[in-house]
């Protein structure tokens, strides 16, 4: 069977969870992989939880949904972690925003990456970069796409107007990768 990655990202509205998934999906597409990005569009009209499922594969993708078969779980806050940790399959990798998530009694069948993405982003001068820090960590450890491709994707998703932010985002990705690497 071909390689297939299923990445589940969850957090609350405003943490950039949806665009994290979109950047990943876009980058994978640029690498000519098959890809799907599915939001959960909940009944909540505003705020509240946000999550998306990204599937990356060499072949045509069947189900774009993630039930309990995420190979990668990304959790930006505690509520999301508690609610959705079960979606990660045994052997999967889990990335948690350790600034907001304790994750006591962690599952033993998966690998944890605890990244203080809020702190790192704050250090970088903008808490809004937390999702990019996380993305850097995830991509570095889960080997999803070429790190540079994420910046290409950034251009496509956010357009010319936002290109000036590329350097700082690049740095965020790098910091995230660094932090994740340090863990092991």
């Amino acid at each position: 069977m071909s390689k297939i990655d299923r990445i589940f990202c969850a957090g609350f509205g405003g943490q950039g969870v949806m665009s994290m998934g979109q950047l990943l999906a876009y980058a994978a597409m640029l690498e000519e992989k098959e890809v799907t990005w599915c939001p959960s569009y909940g009944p909540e009209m505003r705020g509240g939880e946000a999550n998306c499922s990204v599937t990356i594969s060499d072949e045509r993708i069947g189900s774009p949904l993630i039930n309990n078969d995420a190979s990668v779980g990304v959790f930006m806050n505690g509520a999301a972690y508690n609610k959705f940790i079960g979606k990660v399959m045994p052997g999967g990798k889990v990335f948690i925003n350790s600034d907001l998530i304790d994750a006591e009694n962690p599952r033993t069948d998966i690998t944890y990456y605890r990244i203080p993405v809020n702190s790192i982003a704050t250090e970088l001068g903008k808490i809004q970069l937390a999702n990019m820090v996380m993305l850097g960590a995830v991509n570095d450890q889960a080997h999803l796409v070429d790190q540079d491709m994420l910046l290409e994707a950034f251009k496509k998703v956010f357009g010319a107007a936002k290109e000036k932010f590329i350097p700082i985002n690049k740095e965020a990705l790098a910091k995230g990768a660094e932090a994740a690497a340090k863990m092991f």
Partner: protein
Amino acid sequence: MAKVLLKGNEAVVRAAIEAGCKYFFGYPITPQNEIPEYFSKELPKIGGAFVQGESEVASINMLYGAAAAGARAMTSSSSPGIALMQEGIGYISKAEVPAVIVNMMRGGPGLGGIQPSQADYNMCVKGGSNGDYRTVVLAPGNVQELVDMVQEAFDIADQYRILCIVLADGLIGQMMEPVELRKPKERPIPAKDWALTGRNGGKTHRVYNLKLQAPDLEKDNFDLFKKYAVIEENETRYEDYMMEDAEFAFASYGTASRVVRTAVDRLREEGYKVGLVRPQTLWPFPYEAFNRPQIKKYMDIELNMGQMVDDVVLGCGDKEKVEFFGHTGGVLITVDEVCDFAKKIMGGAK
């Protein structure tokens, strides 16, 4: 054209514009709001018009007017909104003006919920309006196919002077996938010499809906059904997956069929000889695709209470051969559930 990563709803708009659609009439409803929203931004740029109808009833009747005026035009909505369009759907069908509707289905009945569903099969495929009529119903299985089908819908509509419904579940509208805008196959599209354009020195154009004399109306209906027979002949479409040596077959369309596809992969790994028949047109329905004596059971998987089951039975000719599994009300099915269900049906057979 290079691929772009598009949300299904946005993709609908791009595809429609690519197909020459310059007019959109629609009313907000979740989960398809991005369609009117994108149209409202894009159409003025190309000299077309976006009108937010005061209701779905108004929207479908605006579409009737614009289509009768000879333009490529469309509306979109979701389940209860489509229910409100039924009278208008009948009018468009009677008048044989070519038009396109996109239905991003959500759970029902009634107001129901806003999560994805396929529970409008009956309404859209069997006919939710009065009288003898048919509409072409295209059922995309992913965003690329959504794009392709929206474009084709305009061509099919024009070729046959018929209403074409693109019937997708809400998830297809909400999800993103890489999409390429490619040209649909060439079709013979007749000139719209019947359209309301003013006389322009020629004869007066008249678009009728009433035939007071029953024999006249009967003749119209007979003509309609002759046309429908041609469409059944030409446009019936489905896709096989792993069907060459299959002994059991899933029947599924739209998002459900993607989950099923993954289930087929998994079951094949476990040695089950199972495949998937995925109708791409729900009307005309690919009855023949289910007429395979070697298949022991058809497993119909839908996001509803089993609305396609009758058609699968009609196709395979044996109701004992058809089993159903699905979720309703916006709950999605999982690969596990589908596999478990299939194994129960298939028993030890591998």
